[in-house]
């Protein structure tokens, strides 16, 4: 059954991708991209990658799609027909694809437990991580502890993107009289429902943040979901009212502080005489140290991701509202 589902999802995915090539209405392209993201998340889920599915659904289908839609509101939704021939790209793509297909011929068979990838490094994570790190979710153990440095880099990437977007677009406060009608003002039902479910979403974000050690989830996903709650609020009520709750200045501080929290755990463990990010040093008992370390760095990750994603969205949204006023 799993194979059948996999095949069906892959087929739907291929159809979506093909359809996107030929669509000229960019609004539809972005919506289909949302579908594409959802489908690929389902495939990740079907291939046992629950954490990845979680992230792809919230980041790919959520944040990316919303940002793309915001961009379209500013740039228009029709792609004009291209004049230059599409021959060269096709050749490039076919050659690349052929090389890849050639490469697949020596690949280890799909799902075989004897594949080299499952034999060399991974067994230690699977067998020892419960003893060495003390968390049932191996993905969190590897992410936060064994490969914690990667994760630090990733947080920094998000921070860098936020810096970039802020420097490019900036967040401007509108003059009061100009922003009278932002948000989906007409939709009364939406207002009520949004107010009802936003607390639920934030609650869920907290659950994901702190349950990540035991089930799918963790700092990234929690940060994105919390940001999504405020994105929903902004979409429905407009930027001005969201700024009262979370101001852009505050977000800039949060984004920086999240990175610092993460890095300071590393520095602290150096200070205690260990290597950078060696959580064993954080407490007398190594397992407890690992646990503290992971909770703190996940918190740092969550803070930065939340703040960075929300400021990026603010930047786009303030552009949209500005252009709408003009």
């Amino acid at each position, binding site marked *: 059954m799993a194979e059948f589902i996999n095949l069906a999802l892959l087929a739907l995915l291929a159809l979506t991708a093909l359809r996107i090539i030929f669509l000229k209405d960019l609004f539809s392209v972005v919506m289909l991209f949302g579908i594409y993201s959802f489908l690929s998340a389902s495939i990740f889920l079907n291939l046992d990658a629950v954490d990845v599915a979680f992230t792809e659904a919230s980041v790919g289908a959520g944040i990316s799609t919303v940002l793309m839609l915001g961009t379209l509101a500013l740039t228009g939704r029709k792609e004009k027909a291209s004049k230059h021939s599409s021959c060269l790209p096709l050749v490039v793509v076919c050659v690349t694809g052929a090389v890849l297909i050639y490469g697949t011929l020596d690949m280890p068979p799909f799902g075989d437990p004897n594949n080299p990838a499952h034999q060399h490094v991974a067994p230690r994570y699977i067998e020892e991580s419960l003893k060495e790190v003390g968390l049932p979710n191996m993905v969190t153990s590897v992410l936060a502890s064994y490969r914690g440095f990667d994760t630090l880099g990733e947080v920094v990437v998000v921070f860098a993107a936020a810096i970039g977007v802020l420097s490019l677009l900036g967040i401007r406060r509108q003059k009061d009289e100009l922003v009278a009608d932002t948000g989906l003002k*007409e939709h009364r*039902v*939406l207002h009520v*429902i949004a107010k*009802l479910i936003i607390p639920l979403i934030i609650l869920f974000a907290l659950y994901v943040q702190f349950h990540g050690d035991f089930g799918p989830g963790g700092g990234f996903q929690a940060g994105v979901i919390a940001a999504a709650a405020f994105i929903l609020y902004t979409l429905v009520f407009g930027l001005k009212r969201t700024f009262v709750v979370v101001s852009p200045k505050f977000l800039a501080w949060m984004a920086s502080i999240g990175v610092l929290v993460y890095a300071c755990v590393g520095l602290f463990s150096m200070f205690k005489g260990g290597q950078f990010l060696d959580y064993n040093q954080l407490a007398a008992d190594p397992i407890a140290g690992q646990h503290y370390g992971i909770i703190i760095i996940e918190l740092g990750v969550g803070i930065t991701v939340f703040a960075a994603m929300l400021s990026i969205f603010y930047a786009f949204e303030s552009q949209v509202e500005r252009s709408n006023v003009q």
Partner: protein
Amino acid sequence: MLILDIVSALLLIAGGFFGLSGAIGLFKFPDFYTRVHSASVTDSIAVILIMGGLLLQTSFDINTAKLLFIMLFLMLTSPTASHALAKSARHGGLASMAEAKMDEQENNNNG
């Protein structure tokens, strides 16, 4: 246990049936507003039935709570989304079938 299983199976099958009928309605109904109607009404009933069926499969633990949460969430958001969509379409000037006919008649009368 057996009775629960049977009830659950019946609920699931009914849910699947309503889902399918909604999807067919998406193609068969004549104008946008009727299609919204078909999609959103069957959506809600399918959610209730399938979630209900799955609820009976759990052993009343955290999964039950999560299923209830999903159900509550979908019951809140799915009709809201349909409503907002229909309202936007209305706002954007999309005519229903009846209106389109009336317009046509008016045009004919005027012309």
